[in-house]
């Protein structure tokens, strides 16, 4: 990416995450869309394209053609469409929006990540929807659950690197603590290691507290070309890099059970194209869909040494006052995990951090900030790097 291809995030909007029982998906979307528009008095007619990231509107609600639906109820008449890439839906939508601006054909676009999951009241409906991001024939129908596949990764990581069950639980403890400082987080309660280890077993060694709960929510960002951005903000936050990495959809098709190879690929490409290293990253939001995923993610991103993710978490290196704070927002675990919204919510946390608006979670002297989002068990990875 050349110097002039950086794309600015000029405005953001986000609902609370949780059980938003009183709103339809269009209502949830509107809360986020209009917060982002009204913050900067952007007219809805100025938005040239709406990129909607959503994982499961069809499964959760029997609704497709989501781009058109949301645009209609938001009063937007620009081209609108849904992008689906399981848990990475929002991040893949963001990447395509960035590409839209980089192409020169657009100057102001909106990305909306949205999910309404709590309507799926039966645990099995929800499980089915979550498992639809796996290889249904050769994983799900053989008995796999999302938890079982992350449990296999956890076992492999413990076996290979001596990672302990307590270290993995420390991810949950940290993310709940961070969430307790985030007014928009779904879970503001703090938890102890023992609570994690006493929660219901899902798939050995992973337990209920290692997983994310169902959630409703939306997050939106308005992106602008560099030129246009300065008319809204004299000191904009830029997305310098956004890379997507691939790994086979099924865990058994991958060479390593203890690395997200698509994440590693995307991160290394982003660092290289930008002429920086992982050491230049001051904080990161990563896809902690299960506790163990955060440990593998921070290793694959090069933010900690391979095999040391559990130890780094236990030592506090990834805490707010650590050397590389991870998931300052509370992550998917604490802030909440309306899947399609998570990739966009990460960008909003980094935006707030870079702008100095993160309140009690504020990280000082930020050079660059990184976001990492994944689909399924790591088949799709998106890595973004933001800064001034």
């Amino acid at each position, binding site marked *: 990416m050349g110097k002039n291809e950086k794309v600015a995030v000029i405005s953001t909007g986000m609902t609370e995450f949780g059980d938003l029982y009183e709103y339809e998906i269009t209502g949830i979307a509107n809360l986020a869309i209009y917060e982002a528009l009204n913050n900067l008095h952007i007219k809805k007619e100025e938005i040239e394209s709406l990129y909607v990231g959503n994982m499961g509107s069809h499964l959760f609600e029997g609704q497709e053609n989501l781009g058109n639906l949301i645009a209609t109820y938001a009063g937007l008449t620009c081209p609108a469409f849904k992008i689906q890439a399981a848990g990475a839906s929002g991040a893949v939508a963001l990447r395509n929006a960035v590409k839209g601006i980089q192409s020169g054909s657009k100057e102001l676009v909106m990305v909306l990540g949205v999910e309404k999951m709590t309507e799926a009241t039966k645990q099995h409906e929800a499980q*089915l929807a979550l498992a639809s991001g796996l290889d249904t024939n050769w994983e*799900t129908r*053989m*008995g*796999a659950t999302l938890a*079982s596949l992350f449990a296999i990764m956890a076992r*492999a990581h413990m*076996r290979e690197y001596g990672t302990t069950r307590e270290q993995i639980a420390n991810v949950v403890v940290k993310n709940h603590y961070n969430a307790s400082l985030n007014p928009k987080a779904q879970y503001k309660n703090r938890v102890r290691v023992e609570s994690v280890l006493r929660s219901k077993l899902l*798939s050995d060694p*992973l337990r209920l507290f290692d997983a994310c709960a169902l959630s409703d929510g939306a997050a939106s960002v308005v992106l602008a070309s560099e030129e246009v951005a300065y008319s809204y903000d004299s000191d904009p936050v830029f997305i310098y890099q956004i890379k997507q990495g691939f790994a086979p959809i099924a865990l058994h098709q991958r060479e390593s059970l203890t690395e997200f190879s698509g994440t590693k690929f995307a991160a290394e490409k982003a660092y290289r194209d930008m002429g920086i290293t992982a050491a230049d990253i001051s904080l990161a939001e990563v896809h902690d869909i299960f506790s163990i995923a955060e440990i593998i993610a921070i290793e694959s991103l090069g933010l900690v040494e391979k095999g040391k993710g559990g130890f780094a978490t236990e030592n506090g290196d990834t805490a707010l006052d650590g050397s590389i704070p991870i998931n300052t927002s509370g992550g998917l675990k604490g802030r909440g995990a309306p899947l399609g919204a998570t990739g966009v919510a990460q960008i909003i946390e980094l935006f707030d951090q870079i702008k100095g608006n993160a309140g009690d979670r504020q990280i000082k002297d930020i050079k660059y900030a990184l976001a990492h989002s994944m689909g399924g068990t790591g088949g799709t990875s998106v890595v973004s790097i933001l800064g001034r």
Partner: protein
Amino acid sequence: MGVARSWRTQKSRYRLTGSKCTKCGALYFPINIVCIKCTSLDLEEFQFSGKAKLIEWTRVDEAAKGFEHLVPYYFGIVELEEGVRISTQIVDVVDENILQPGLQLQMTFRKLGEGTEEGIINYGLKAEPVDW
């Protein structure tokens, strides 16, 4: 899952039949119509022996739909002796301590789960320990 989808995958699902590329020899499970290594469309059916070794595993306590009656069950990734990996349930585990990477397994034909809304009972292959 519909009847047609079940039928389409049953040769692989019931008999561990895969594909072999006649050009480069690459093996695939399940059956594939193209060799993604050399792009050849000349593939023939290949019968995997069913001998396998354990790569990694877990015990599932919260099952997916259709598998509730099996809980808790063992589930893992195994490598067929021909070098291809698959996901499978592991049955007849009398002692969890035997489940170590490298454990010799044999694929065996079993009822997989309780079937679906369409009433199709899913049969297929599971892995069982050879000796312990």
